[in-house]
């Protein structure tokens, strides 16, 4: 039984260099609502873990072979052999976490905060056999550090694996609208 949200993607040529996957029409099959609610809760939890600086729990959301990927440009189709702003497996994520928690991570003083909003959640594909999901959403992150506010916004694309313990991330792709711009200071943690 197809529990999928089928999506007819527009065949129009995307604007120069930009990855657009605007659905021309969306239909939601009966039964898909349960998945959407589960996925939404998953994404909200991930955002809360980031904002709460619960780095270890954040990493636990990833499958053992999972990756967090922020391409250097939106037209990249694979992280292999291409420049990336982030391309981290759980080991590299652990390096980042250990650095953030180190007492001599000088840039952690002053402490800083973020607030993530996640919205426009849609299931792009659901494997009827494994239950694995491809999910697209939009995010907006506001960061406050040493009296300076920064905004980062864009699209999350999650490849989620369904397991007995719930959903795990195989791949989280993050395309920021302002990813290619100059950075005033760096991104210390995942967006």
């Amino acid at each position, binding site marked *: 039984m197809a529990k999928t949200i089928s999506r007819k993607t527009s065949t129009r040529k995307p604007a120069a260099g930009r990855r657009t996957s605007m659905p021309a029409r969306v239909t939601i099959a009966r039964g898909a609502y349960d998945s959407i609610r589960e996925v939404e809760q998953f994404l909200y939890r991930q955002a809360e873990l980031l904002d709460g600086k619960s780095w270890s729990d954040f990493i636990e959301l990833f499958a053992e072979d999972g990756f967090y990927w922020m391409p250097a440009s939106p037209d990249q189709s694979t992280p292999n*052999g291409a420049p990336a*702003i982030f391309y981290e497996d759980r080991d590299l994520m652990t390096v980042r976490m250990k*650095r953030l928690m*180190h007492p*001599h991570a000088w840039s952690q003083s002053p402490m800083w905060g973020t607030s993530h909003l996640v919205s426009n959640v849609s299931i792009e594909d659901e494997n009827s056999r494994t239950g694995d999901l491809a999910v697209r959403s939009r995010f907006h992150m506001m960061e406050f550090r040493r009296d300076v506010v920064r905004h980062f916004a864009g699209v999350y694309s999650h490849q989620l694996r369904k397991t007995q313990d719930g959903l795990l991330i195989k791949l989280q792709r993050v395309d920021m609208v302002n990813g290619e711009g100059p950075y005033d200071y760096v991104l*210390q943690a995942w967006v």
Partner: protein
Amino acid sequence: MTRKGRGDLTRLVEPDRVHRSVYVDPAIFESEMEAIFHRAWIYVGHESQVQRPGDYCTVLVGRQPMIMVRHSDGQVHVLYNRCAHRGAMLCGNLRGNTGEAFTCSYHSWRYNTNGSLESMPLPKGYDGTRLSAANQERNLKRAARVAAYRGFVFASLAADGPSLMDFLGDAKIAFDDMCDRAPEGQVDIVQTCFRIVQHSNWKIFMENQLDALHPSVTHESSGQAAAQVERDIARRGGKAPLDYHYLSAFTTPLPKWDEVLTVNYQHGHSALQGYMGLRPQDPDSLAYEAMMRKHYGAKRTEEILGVNIHHVLLYPGLSVQSALQQVRAVRPLAVDRTLIEIWHFRLKGAPEAIYRRALGYYNLINSPSTIVNADDLENFWRCHQGLASDGGAWVSFHRNAGQDDEQDGVIRSRWGTSEAPMRNQFRAWTQYIGGGR
């Protein structure tokens, strides 16, 4: 502060200390732009950025917005990004292909990609005026001098001064070491530029580059974090990728850093010896070495791969890590704001695995998510804040002052943590500002 004569400014620099105003005074910054960035050879870009005719990229040379573009005859030109008519900027993009001509968005003056005026609307309107067809001011202004070494394009906005080769001197090893490592002797740029703006004076970046005392302090957190995970991976029976080594090398104890010597050349350039041991013996590296021997022969290959440089700094504005094929270009925006453009390169003819090594460094150390620069930028900001205060008048460069070896104008530090590179930079600064070069 009122504008001083440039000769006066050199009094702000002593052999072992520099007055703080050199970092925070906007008027001195403007003098630096005129006397240094508009006279010295400034890195513009790499020829492979503009491969086809009409390919261009825009870049700041000092205060000047410039266009680097390839003309139909294959020549690369560096032009002021300003229409000769009413002064509008011609190119608003970072890069692209303009075809055969640049067209001004205001009144449609069209310029060939060598900068000469191709056409303007209703040209008879200029008949009998001072801007008739023979007037060179109808064309785009070009950088006074443009030269390239091994594909790396530099411009000088001053008509006089040393040639590019005289300017680079022995520091040209930055490009030789990078290009020689390619079986075909050339590199290709990867068309991604990470851009990071630091809220500090440009010199603070330059002084940090060869500062061998800071890594184990500033980057202690990143070094230890990577070393811990490296050990965890080994405990699982795995082997951490080379990338981890780039980070865990920061745990090198301080006495070891004192053994990493610097060579300080004329014009403010410096080189720092290698410390990372980037000659692994994995199958990919061995295949690459075999390929190198085929191109260069065994003896020359050993010479090339035996060069052990971590970093070459070309004053005033380029940091080159030749063995990892990275460059960082310094574009001062204001006295307290500096844009750093970060690029990396492919060794032509080398296997993909060798490119992945450069890419790993680019992604992990030089990307906007870098856990290394995160702490440098914090230091740079703190330095600039401190220097803007009246808490002290001078910046100290006393470490091992008077203890370096100098011969024929080249200064070799006896200690890796000697502040010789900073003193050498200010030797050049004084020459530029004093008008000596």
